[in-house]
């Protein structure tokens, strides 16, 4: 059986989750490898969520928020951006390839962009191979 990566997506409620919803409404195909979890804001995403996801067997993690300047809560996405850069370093020290974590911005109007982003992370993680952290 070919390797199908399991990717956890953390989506903010206002932009990315609605964008993903729009992709569905617009009948745009995006890979089922990404399994979305809704949070109110990308600023809510605690780095422990991401580490937890890797521990539970995820091969990749996608964090998606509103575009800079468009955050429903003014600056939550900037806080996510800061945490993302720090977490990439930590992941590397743990032996997890930092490219398994991806941060992106998808607005509520960008159903097509959501499909593009999910394809990108899926292909990226597929190339990196399985993580085998749960075993």
């Amino acid at each position: 059986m070919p390797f199908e990566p399991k990717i956890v997506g953390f989506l903010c409620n206002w932009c990315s989750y609605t964008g993903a919803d729009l992709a569905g409404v617009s009948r745009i195909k995006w890979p089922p490898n990404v399994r979305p979890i809704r949070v109110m804001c990308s600023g809510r995403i605690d780095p422990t969520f991401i580490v937890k996801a890797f521990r539970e067997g995820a091969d990749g993690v996608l964090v998606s928020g509103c575009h800079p300047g468009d955050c429903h809560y003014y600056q939550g996405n900037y806080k996510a951006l800061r945490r993302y850069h720090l977490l990439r370093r930590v992941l590397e020290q743990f032996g997890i390839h930092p490219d398994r974590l991806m941060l992106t911005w998808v607005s509520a109007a960008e159903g097509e962009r959501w499909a593009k982003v999910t394809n990108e992370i899926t292909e990226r993680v597929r190339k990196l191979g399985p993580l085998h952290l749960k075993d």
Partner: protein
Amino acid sequence: MIKLRIDGNEVEVNAGTPLLKAAQKLNIEIPTLCYYEGIEPYAACRVCMVEVVRGRRRRMVTACNYPATDGIEVFTENERVRRARRLNLEMLLGRCSEVPVIRELAAKYGVEKSRFGYDPKEKCILCGLCVRMCSDIVKANVLSFAYSGPRRKVVTPFEREMATDVCIACGACAHVCPTGAITIEDLSQRRGEVPEMPLGPKTAISIPFQQAVPKVPYIDPDACIKMQTGGCGICAQVCEPEAINYTMQDEVVELDVGQILVATGYQIFEASQMAQYGYGKLDNVLSALEFEKMLNSTGPTGGRVLMKNGKEPRAIGLIHCIGSRDARYHKYCSRVCCMYALKFAHLVKDRTNAEVYQFYIDMRAFGKGYEEFYSRILDEGVNMIRGKAAEVVEATWGNEREGHLLVRCEDTLIGKFREVPVDMVVLCAAIEPNADQDRIGQIFSLSRSPDGFFLERHPKLDPMGTVNDGIYLAGCCQGPKDIPDTVAQAQGAAARILALISKGEVFLDPIRACIDENLCGGCKVCNNLCPYSAITFDDVKKVSIVNETLCKGCGTCVAACPAGAITGSGFTDEQIFAEIEGILADAGNK
């Protein structure tokens, strides 16, 4: 009030009213050249001579400045009066021999030629209306008399032609001049014009258009004499209800509201961006809004379709989809253009004998009754050419050397290139989002769809709502739409707003942050993170506390709390961990 008799009729007026005005009350017309209401009478032309009888005394006076007094009798057309006027008119005719208004008036009194000379060039009768207008009313003090005796004349400062910055180019002197001796040349382009509607001039105080809401005049501060020199003020003098207010300023009003309907509208695509259609360069290439204004019966042409030279066009081309359905500008369809272009065709056919050509990509008659209207226009003999026009160029037509227009296009129905000669072209430009749509969107936290219009909550199930509770959309700020669609959406939004008002209470999502006082270490990290300043520090307990009404539940503080003292209801760490575990339940089992 006093009583006097004019030509045998008794009239009652205020003491001191000029006889001319008193006569007007009886509909008796006294001829005059130099009387202008609102300007101090000067009795210069002496055409308004009348005879006044008081007791046994009879005398000739000028009606424009002789005050009405009690008991006098006035004769305006007896032989003595006519003789005096005849002589005065003969002298005026001797000075200004070819001025139409003087010739007409003189002819009325039987004066065809003057014994006092002949001067076809002179137009000024030295009545000084312009001088008094400029100094008393406008208060610009530009014009004055110079020299005396036969050399007396009206001059600009130092007798230079318009070489003065004092003149504000208001044109009031030319307006009051009875003989047309003053012409205005706008050497420094100081006169106001309506930039978006260049079809005609406007006055400093005007009603923008007849259908304006509210339909009240407004003052253009750049053109108003009162606002430039402090003079004039005529509009306030003539306004009986005293509605004119020169000191009114824009004001910013702050209102506390619970719900907001965003209906900020649209702007029209600037057609000069597509240089191939010649808008702004070629005469008689109009935008749809300009053509609409021209068709308006209260507009600058009184509803007549006219070219710039004042003639009626023999053929008109209506070009659809300027900037819309075009990958280079806007991909979307503007929805309203097909139907208003058909309406234009109908009105042109109704008012002129011109041929009408419609250059369209697809005819989108989508609404109720629209297809029927389209069929009706086809029956009226409008030429439909399926194919987007490629360019509009200047051309000559037949033997006429004057510039006409040529529309080059591909007729996709017959598969040929065509060149259609027309006199006038109307461009149906796209509806596009306002230039400041982005800024308005940020104020209300609204998303925009890829076309730049505001995004509704759901395209089918919630077309007037937004992701923000209490903020609704109506009209073209959400996407191009015609009047019925706009009204439907706006009424829907209004109903939603009223429903919430009549309910009287709002349900908030129970997503809030909550601080456990036993765990909080009082580090204050969360205090500055909160975008709504919902977290404050309790100096007595030495812990941070959340104001639950201000908190919007974003969870930024929850993620940041080093002590793990903050929980976000609905999105607690445990809940999200459980979600991760559940979502990855199948992972790792080889």
